[in-house]
């Protein structure tokens, strides 16, 4: 194996991150890149996998009594609330770059882990169906910048920003719904790197259908200056579609 082709710069960086030789600043850079570039994240995973057999050689050592009791005491009680689970699932699916596969799986997971409650209340008007959207850059980059899921049961839109947290401090990101011929309707402000659950009034829910679009614009603090829609540049755009 004397002649192996050199690794590309991106792969070498991914391999170095998996190996652990980068300094703190470079590590942070690699983490951000993993969040933004699914291909890079997959490269790091592949290297972790290649190197991990070194760990297999380590002898097991029984952990002392009492560790499990301490772990159990630390488990968050409500960590499996349905919305948070779905939300993390969405974020994960986008970061991992398996958005499509994960989206089809998400439907299954949701159905399995959440049998629909038997309706005892009065019927709710037009709950609609689960929809999702992946908002990509308007400049043609394929990676999603935001992912959104509309859950009619919860009457909410769950939106996750995949931008680095803390980016662009004196600007805000504003989310818009563009349905049919209506002018864009603001659904509120979202924070870079964070997820948000936006409760939707019934009249907005009625507009949430496959084909409607979601967009995010960059606006001055306080949101768009225009009554008719975004006043700043639109950075992400995506169409709602069925799971």
């Amino acid at each position, binding site marked *: 194996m004397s002649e192996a082709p050199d690794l590309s710069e991106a792969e070498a960086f991914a391999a170095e991150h998996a190996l652990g030789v980068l300094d703190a600043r470079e590590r942070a850079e690699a983490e951000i890149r993993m969040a933004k570039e699914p291909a890079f994240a997959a490269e790091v995973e592949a290297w972790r996998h290649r190197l991990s057999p*070194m760990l297999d*050689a380590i002898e097991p050592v029984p952990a002392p009594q009492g560790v499990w009791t301490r772990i159990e005491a630390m488990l968050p009680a409500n960590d499996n609330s349905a919305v948070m689970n779905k939300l993390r699932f969405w974020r994960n699916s986008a970061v991992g770059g398996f958005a499509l596969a994960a989206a089809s799986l998400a439907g299954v997971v949701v159905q399995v882990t959440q049998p629909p409650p038997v309706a005892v209340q009065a019927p709710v008007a037009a709950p609609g169906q689960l929809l999702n959207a992946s908002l990509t850059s308007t400049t043609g980059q394929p990676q999603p910048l935001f992912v959104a899921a509309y859950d009619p049961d919860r009457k909410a839109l769950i939106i996750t920003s995949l931008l680095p947290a803390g980016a662009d401090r004196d600007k805000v990101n504003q989310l818009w719904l563009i349905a049919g011929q209506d002018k864009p309707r603001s659904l509120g402000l979202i924070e870079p790197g964070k997820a948000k659950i936006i409760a939707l009034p019934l009249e907005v829910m009625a507009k949430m259908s496959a084909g409607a679009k979601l967009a995010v614009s960059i606006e001055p603090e306080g949101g768009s200056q225009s009554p008719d829609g975004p006043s700043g540049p639109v950075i992400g755009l995506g169409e709602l579609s069925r799971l």
Partner: protein
Amino acid sequence: MAAAATTPEILSSLMTRIASGEREALRQLYQATSAKLFGVCLRILSDREESEDVLQDVFVTIWRRADRFDVTRASVMTWLSTIARNRSIDRLRARGPLAYAGTIDGLEIPDGADSAETLLSAADDRNKLQGCLSELDDRTQTVIRTAFFEGVTYETLARNMDAPLGTVKSWIRRGLAKLKGCLQS
């Protein structure tokens, strides 16, 4: 630890149950894997108390992030061991730069060639990686193993080996490229 009947399939199904919030599944995963993961922590930290803390942290992390585990991309054991290794290395780094002083000289890493496999995972992968590592020259092998088990940066490696940073970097990069080629063949 009754890990005898643990297969990758059982671990995968435990992960699915953990992702949906089932504590009993986490307890079973703990029974099946904690000894292995504790071994990983101890190997890196060489300190029982710190290893217990990290092990605890690892399982709380698994509980929170089980839904991020993707069965199509990684084996459960790889994922768990990687978390244990990364957390241990974070802890090691938090001790400060002195922790690395003099770790290269006389570095001895048991290759575990005779160790019994507790979990029925990837013995072939292990042998293959061992084989490919052993095809590298000694120095490259040593820096790669040291980096992996101790999380030492290029800078520290260069200082400890008294070699220019760029040189150490090119040893490692070339070594990794060879390793990849060998693993693929």
